[in-house]
């Protein structure tokens, strides 16, 4: 999967936790989960868990620390998929 395909795969994961539909409509790599999509920090872990399940990867603590925006999420998924 290239980065655009990864963003498309991420959208249905992010959508249920998003409270700003406007920002979700304009979603790009630069979108910040908390500042732009206004996702509750207690729900960021749900996104991490959903990504783990969907892509069958394990996101460890150092990776989770960076998981604040779409770009970081894509970077992490890409690197984990390459290691498979």
């Amino acid at each position, binding site marked *: 999967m290239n980065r655009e395909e990864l963003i498309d795969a991420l959208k249905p994961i992010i959508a249920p936790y998003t409270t700003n539909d406007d920002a979700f409509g304009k979603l790009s790599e630069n979108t910040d989960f908390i500042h732009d999509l206004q996702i509750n920090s207690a729900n960021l872990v749900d996104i991490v*868990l959903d990504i783990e399940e969907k892509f069958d990867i394990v996101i460890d603590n150092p990776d989770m620390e*960076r998981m604040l925006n779409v770009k970081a999420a894509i970077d992490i998924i890409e690197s984990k998929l390459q290691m498979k």
Partner: protein
Amino acid sequence: MIGNDVIDLVQSRKDSNWRRRGFIPKLFGADEQLLIANSPDPETTLWLLWSMKEAAYKAWNRETKIRKYMPKKLVCTISRQSVSNACGRVVCEGKIYYTETILAPDFIHSIAVSVFSHLDYVIEIEKNEIVKDHFGIPYVAVEGGTELFAASVSNHGRFEKVVAISRI
């Protein structure tokens, strides 16, 4: 340094399935997981610990200007707890934050400060008194804006809590 975090317990039941596999281990360290598992009211204990972490993170972020999603690096200890409140501390990368939490029937509100005695000077204020610096960090302006005191804002569901240290 100050930070606060409010959790609307009706909203959290809608937003979070904390019983889902992996949820607790990703957010809480071994000692915290034991506190939750052994609690007569695991839901309250979980959100108490989470609000302590969030409040301390805001104080830490205020100081360091660093953003990270690092719940397990915020290590909580509860020193005293009753049905209506709790006191404790949170250690984050060598820094210590002292916390006080109100446990109400429908919300949990934690306040974290970096200096223990400042807990005595924390007051709840109105949102319209808040000004923000270019990092987005909130202050309350007093004396016609000539003096700024550290403040913190938290919203969740039906609740908004704005706190400040009234004097240092």
